[in-house]
């Protein structure tokens, strides 16, 4: 009988914390892990901590990072967004294809409008129709990928004259010696972090994600809040597409395939709970950077690129497990 009681307690504790608050210790835990990783890699490889290497890693991670910033907001609001990968394909193909047809400025504006429109569809279905976000965005993932293929006719697109267009600035340019993707990533991250932490809008999103019913009784317009998170996510995807399209100056029509999962991996690693109501953008940044530096470090040590996937597997589960264990004060669940 005792074990059943313990089991119930464990479940209740679990629940209490799952709904939970930002856990201070776990936030520190991932930062410590990050520093240990950096230290370990720097012991084995001299180039690892060089300025150029760090800049390269951050730049590579910036596309996933930009998307992850938006998806973090969606997740804090208590939903998921699996459609970002297809949306990235959509936006990148669109902006690259339209570049030669209507000029860079028109292409960028149209791309942002259409991407936000897709975000609005997501937001409408999930916010106002209150459908399950996992299935809706899964359906959108498939539908948008189909749209991309219909639009491009299955062909890859590229920009004909790549040398003299200011469009190259977003992916290849530098300001004060720092690559533009990194600046874009940093600016977006800071803005969103400030909004989430210091404005009433941010607090409302946390409230909606943590306890939707309570949020509604407090007079928060839940539907609009959820709707807006998908607009933010779509906006971030559009920015990422701008960087990606400008960097490559061309696009395969499935370029974003699998991005949704890398983004989620970074967010989970950072310690944002998938259940909503907790998390932060800076944690996500650390999560995304850890993945980036592990990939880079393993390559510098001479391991093939796919070993990072094995390492990712282990550290994602370890990170979430230790976080949970810390909250329930025991390593394993008690039920049988």
């Amino acid at each position, binding site marked *: 009988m005792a074990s059943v009681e313990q089991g119930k307690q464990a479940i209740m504790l679990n629940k209490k914390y799952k709904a939970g608050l930002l856990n201070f210790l776990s936030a520190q835990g991932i930062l410590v892990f990050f520093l240990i990783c950096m230290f370990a890699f720097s012991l084995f490889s001299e180039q690892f901590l060089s300025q150029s290497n760090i800049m390269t890693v951050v730049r590579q991670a910036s596309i996933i990072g930009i998307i992850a910033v938006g998806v973090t907001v969606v997740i804090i609001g208590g939903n998921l967004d699996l459609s970002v990968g297809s949306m990235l394909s959509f936006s990148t193909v669109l902006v690259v294809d339209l570049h030669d047809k209507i000029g860079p400025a028109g292409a960028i504006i149209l791309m942002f409008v259409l991407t936000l429109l897709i975000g609005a569809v997501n937001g409408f279905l999930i916010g106002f129709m*209150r459908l399950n976000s996992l299935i809706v965005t899964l*359906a959108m993932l498939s539908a948008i990928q*189909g749209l991309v*293929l219909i639009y491009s006719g299955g062909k890859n697109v590229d920009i004909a004259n790549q040398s003299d267009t200011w469009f190259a600035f977003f992916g290849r340019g530098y300001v004060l010696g720092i690559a533009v993707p990194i600046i874009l990533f940093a600016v977006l991250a800071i803005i969103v972090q400030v909004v989430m932490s210091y404005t009433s809008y941010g607090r409302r999103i946390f409230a909606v994600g943590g306890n939707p019913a309570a949020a509604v009784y407090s007079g928060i317009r839940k539907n609009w809040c959820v709707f807006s998170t998908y607009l933010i996510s779509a906006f971030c995807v559009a920015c990422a597409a701008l960087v990606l399209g400008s960097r490559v100056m061309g696009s395969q029509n499935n370029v974003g395939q699998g991005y949704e*999962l890398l983004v989620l991996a970074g967010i989970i690693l950072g310690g944002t709970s998938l259940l909503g109501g907790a998390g932060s953008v800076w944690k996500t940044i650390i999560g995304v950077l850890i993945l980036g530096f592990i990939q880079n470090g393993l390559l510098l040590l001479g391991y093939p690129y796919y070993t990072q*996937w094995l390492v990712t597997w282990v550290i994602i*589960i370890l990170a*979430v497990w230790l976080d949970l264990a810390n909250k329930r004060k025991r390593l394993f669940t008690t039920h*049988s």
Partner: protein
Amino acid sequence: MINMKDFLKGSGFIQPIWVFVIAITVFFSFMSEYFLSVGNLSNILVQTSTIGLIALGMTYVMINGNIDLSVGAVLGLAASLSVGLQDYGITIAVIAALASGLVLGAINGLIVWKTGVNAFIVTLGAMIGVRGLIFVYTEEQSFYATNFAFSDFGTASIGPFPVLAIIFLICTLVMHLVLKKTGHGRNTFAVGGNPEAALDAGIRIGRHMMINFIIVGFFAALAGVLLATQMGAATPNLGRDYELWTITAVVLGGTKLTGGFGSITGTLGGVLAIGILRNGMNLMQVPAFYVLVILGVILISVLIIDQRLNVHASKGVSI
């Protein structure tokens, strides 16, 4: 008299997905003269058997209130093992491939059970990691089956019925009976419907979860082996996106992501719906891209219909 509301909810005798399956079957048989032939229909069964087999296991896991995103990667690993190990004999290769599915399912299940980490996260990790395992094992090479007994199996048939279709249908029947008639099946529903109540009732929720993960791992591996026999080869990227197709099929079949509700018959309908749509539109010479859009639209429509009808159950407060 069939109660319309019960019917659309999926709690009546006839499931809505089957009406949809029959409707598109009728539609395509008018649109294409080749559609309604024994050859084409058994072709559809063979084409859907891969996703169908995984969907059987996925139904259990989803009724149980969990999800498995790693099935595509497990399928890829099993396919690579079943072709790559053929120097030791086909039997050993196939056994090793199926065992890999069982082991990976057991690992997923054990982690979900013992650590209490959300199945979505556990299997997302596994999805990335197992793909890494495939690449480590294959070193990015594709394998080709040199033994023709292996690749002939994929195209073999007993009378007019392809072996793969028969295997799929037998598995479907067995899984349906296990879900309906055994204690494990009942407990799977109980755990998915209300884990705490199940725990109070003395059901060992962790073990049932783990068994279901082992089941889905096994079926993913089986699907991988059968797919490899069809192609006579295995590529390291085999099975990407299969988790999405599988989940789509299962959800179309009426199984709820929240757990505690679903059926194998519905899943069979969902799998067939996808297969018939793909095949029929192929015959009508519609580019394959449109199927993606149509599937997305159907999936969302199913959700909307479901929600409108279950309004009492799911009605939250809103402003």
